[in-house]
């Protein structure tokens, strides 16, 4: 058995092959044995794409390791391919020399044709550069389940567990967690539970007995901070972060949402949290969703709405209203590939522009971005804290990768969360609807139902203090400035930026959002190559942190990697008049560590 620091495994097959379940089980087991992990599910756009097609391939990639794991990995060490299409689609992302574990039974000529293989790659030298392990997974699973009363079709569905068993053996993992999970999941279908467990174990022992692998590997525990952990996706942590903030502020949470990939799980997760005082409205559209959230905030709850790009585009007018009436609201944008309907199931960072600028009139608002699945909790919590404190809507940016990707989350202590005051006005004495708190410029938040504070708000420009409709020119200018200044004041909430790597020197990498892991590892790699490189990762993308300019000044060059054609970079250039360069990838896929490293080297030494 070899000991290695980290491994990337990719499972791939048809939607019906149970790829996502297999990946999730492998992930949870890795987490439970103490590895650090990061995962990336990769769904097709179709619900149940026709079996065997290239576009129907479903994938799940996990990196697990004995060190700090920040991304699901650029390239995999092992590929479990349930059919020829899965092999075809994923081969280019498999390390030369890496392991291919295939289900030979699926390599029928029909499937080969569907996947566009002219010859069976298992039978010629197509795969010569890799270690290929061919297993008759379907046949062996049937064999193992001979005695089971299940129908053949159902038996065949257990082959993913057979495969998982083999992979558990390969990486020396315990079966226990998955066995327990199967027992509880199929508590009411003991035959199914039993068959699956049998398949899992048979796979494990088959791998052992048949000595199908040239080597096996051990990945030791990672030096992880002490505490209780849970494997989480970003859409789950986003929901929990929002609920936690509301509950800590003494508020119920109201979500107005309309389903859209990849944001729907925020709705699903929140809908399951009724006990925490969460009311959800699956609205008729995104406009109704945001408007209902505004209505709920107006009534004194924490109004939230969640969507993805096309939905955000529809909400612009209403977000402008929220900004004008200065009520709290969190707008969650789980970015996906654009423009238009684009690539709905893929990840991208191309909603930066619309988040910052997608409203008529002068209408700035705070925009915050999460950097990893677990970090969505903190970002969502902070978004809610700021919107409640400053009474202006806040946009929270995540993306498809954060939404569906997973990593271990250290469960916080309630006492460690920042306190939040909802601070409703109840005193009629001296009350004016648009009077302002000096420190935050926030106006009072008044619950309808409060005697003596009856007043009117709306989207027309309003007079300073009284809130009456006003067409006065100077008042309008002043109110526009006040709304801008309020957003700028959010700067006072920002801790000093952490500069990763060198504190001054050649290249500063400025990133935001889900590219964090890739940037961080890419910077490490470039540092190792001798470049004096530092990196800052922006939590707030509007307003920009107060110390960013000073940090930029400490470096010769600036690199801004983004999963878009260059959006944040334009703001950085305009704000700091620095000739920043972009690393831009718009491929519906996360940045790779190698790409970041290369871009740093290119910027420093000139392109090869």
């Amino acid at each position, binding site marked *: 058995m070899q000991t290695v620091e980290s491994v990337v495994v990719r499972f791939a097959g048809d939607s019906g092959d149970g790829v996502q379940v297999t990946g999730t089980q492998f992930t949870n087991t890795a987490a439970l044995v103490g590895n650090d992990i990061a995962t990336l599910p990769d769904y097709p756009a179709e619900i149940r794409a026709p079996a065997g097609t290239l576009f129907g391939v479903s994938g799940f990639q996990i990196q697990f390791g004995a060190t700090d794991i920040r991304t699901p990995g650029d390239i995999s060490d092992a590929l479990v391919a349930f059919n020829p299409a899965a092999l075809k689609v994923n081969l280019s992302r498999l390390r030369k020399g890496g392991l291919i574990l295939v289900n030979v039974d699926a390599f029928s000529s029909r499937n080969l044709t569907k996947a566009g293989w002219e010859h069976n790659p298992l039978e010629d030298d197509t795969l010569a550069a890799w270690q290929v392990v061919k297993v008759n997974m379907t046949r062996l699973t049937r064999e193992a389940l001979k005695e089971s009363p299940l129908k053949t079709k159902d038996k065949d569905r257990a082959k993913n567990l057979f495969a998982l068993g083999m992979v558990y053996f390969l990486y020396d993992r315990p079966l226990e967690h998955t066995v327990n999970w199967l027992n509880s999941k199929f508590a009411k279908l003991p035959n199914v539970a039993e068959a699956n467990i049998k398949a899992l174990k048979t796979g494990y022992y088959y791998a052992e007995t048949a000595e199908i692998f040239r080597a096996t590997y051990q990945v030791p525990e990672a030096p992880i901070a002490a505490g209780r952990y*849970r494997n989480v996706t970003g859409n789950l942590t986003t929901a929990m972060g929002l609920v*936690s903030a509301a*509950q800590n502020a003494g508020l119920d949470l109201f979500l107005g949402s309309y389903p859209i990939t990849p944001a729907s799980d925020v709705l699903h997760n929140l809908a399951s949290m009724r006990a925490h005082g969460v*009311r959800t409205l699956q609205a008729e559209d995104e406009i109704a969703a945001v408007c*209902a959230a505004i*209505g709920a905030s107006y009534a004194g709850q924490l109004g939230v709405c969640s969507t993805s790009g096309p939905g955000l585009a529809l909400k612009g007018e209403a977000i402008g*209203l929220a900004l004008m009436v200065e009520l709290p609201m969190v707008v969650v944008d789980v970015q996906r590939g654009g423009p238009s309907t684009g690539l709905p199931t893929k990840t991208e960072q191309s909603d930066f522009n619309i988040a910052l600028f997608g409203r008529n009139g002068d209408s700035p608002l705070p925009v915050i971005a999460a950097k990893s699945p677990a970090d969505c909790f903190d970002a969502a919590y902070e978004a809610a804290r700021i919107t409640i404190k400053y009474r202006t809507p806040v946009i929270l940016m995540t993306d498809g990768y954060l939404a569906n990707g997973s990593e271990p989350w250290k469960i916080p202590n309630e006492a460690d969360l920042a306190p939040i005051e909802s601070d409703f006005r109840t005193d009629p004495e001296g009350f004016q609807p648009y009077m302002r708190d000096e420190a935050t410029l926030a106006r009072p938040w008044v619950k309808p139902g409060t005697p003596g504070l009856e007043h009117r708000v709306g989207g*027309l420009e309003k007079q300073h203090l009284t809130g009456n409709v006003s067409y006065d020119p100077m008042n309008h200018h002043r109110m526009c400035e006040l709304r801008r200044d309020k957003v700028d004041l959010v700067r006072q909430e920002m801790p000093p930026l952490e500069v990763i790597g060198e504190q001054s020197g050649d290249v500063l990498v400025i990133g935001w959002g889900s590219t964090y892991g890739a940037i961080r590892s890419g910077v490490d790699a470039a540092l190792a190559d001798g470049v004096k490189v530092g990196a800052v990762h922006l939590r707030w993308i509007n307003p920009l942190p107060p110390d960013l300019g000073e940090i930029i000044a400490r470096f010769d060059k600036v690199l801004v990697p983004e999963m878009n054609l260059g959006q944040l970079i334009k703001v950085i250039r305009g704000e700091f008049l620095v000739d920043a360069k972009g690393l831009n990838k718009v491929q519906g896929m996360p940045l790779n560590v190698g790409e970041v490293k290369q871009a740093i080297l290119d910027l420093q030494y000139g392109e090869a």
Partner: protein
Amino acid sequence: MNDIIQLTRKDLASDQEVRWCPGCGDYAILKGVQSALATLNVPRENMVVISGIGCAARFPYYMNTYGFHTIHGRSPAVATGTKMANPDLHVWIVGGDGDMMSIGGNHLIHVLRRNVDLTVLLFNNRIYGLTKGQFSPTSGVGKKTKSSPMGSIDPAFEPISLALGAGATFAARTVDLWGKHLQATIKAAHEHKGTSFIEILQNCIIFNDGAFDPAVGKKVKSDKTVELVHGEPLIFGAERDKGVRIRKDLTLEVVTLGENGVTEDDLVVHNAHAELPGLAQLLATMEYPDMPVPVGIFRQVSRPTYEVGMDAQVTQAQAAHGGDKPSLTSLWNQGDTWDVAP
């Protein structure tokens, strides 16, 4: 209910100068709404008036209650959020035919479908007032306006029929200048649990003056309108000698009592509480001027309300936790967790 809340119409008037055109029907409606609301035994601070954009939608500014002048067409959505967040509030939505039936049509039919407990006041003047007189979805074919100089080719919506088609549990029609009728309708709507929809025929003196006069004008109204009263036959006319009868093929006709042996027993008897909206639809789509314009309550049936349904789920979910929110720690610790030792 004890009349513990003593309000007068003036108590419900805000300090803002009313800015409608002199002679606009909205003035009468404002007065009527203020009068009606003063009698509801609802504390002023629990009243919320929510509107979209348009002349009608200026309404909240003139009400000394909580008020929200939102954006064009979206008041039903905002109001749904407000009512769900605080079911104790009494919510009125105000808007014009453009606001509610054009840009806001979808939110209107969805709030009616959901049956959120609030009242919709549609000020139907069959024109876009605030934007200076374009035709609206209730103007109808032939209407000449700035945006239809050769006459509109857009057939009109029948608002009550659309509302019923969307599942409205309460639908009624009244007229701006019919003070008592207006107030009575508003009170009935307020008592209804669920979304109540009131179409108020409103005169826009500037851009569509007299649009409803042929039917609801002082001199003609007895002959051109018929009051719908639950359990009563459809009788109308200055002499109360005309009635509405149904033919075998389920179409309606006007008959004269006493002529050709027609008696009250031959007439359609209104049933606002019928479980299914078929009869109400028949009445809503009677075509003026052959038939009189029905006013009053077309439909009023009892169905669960939306915000109550949602609250029940919260209550039920909390029942397991002594009726309270579980701790955040318990939320965070769901699913598989593992410990890493120091």
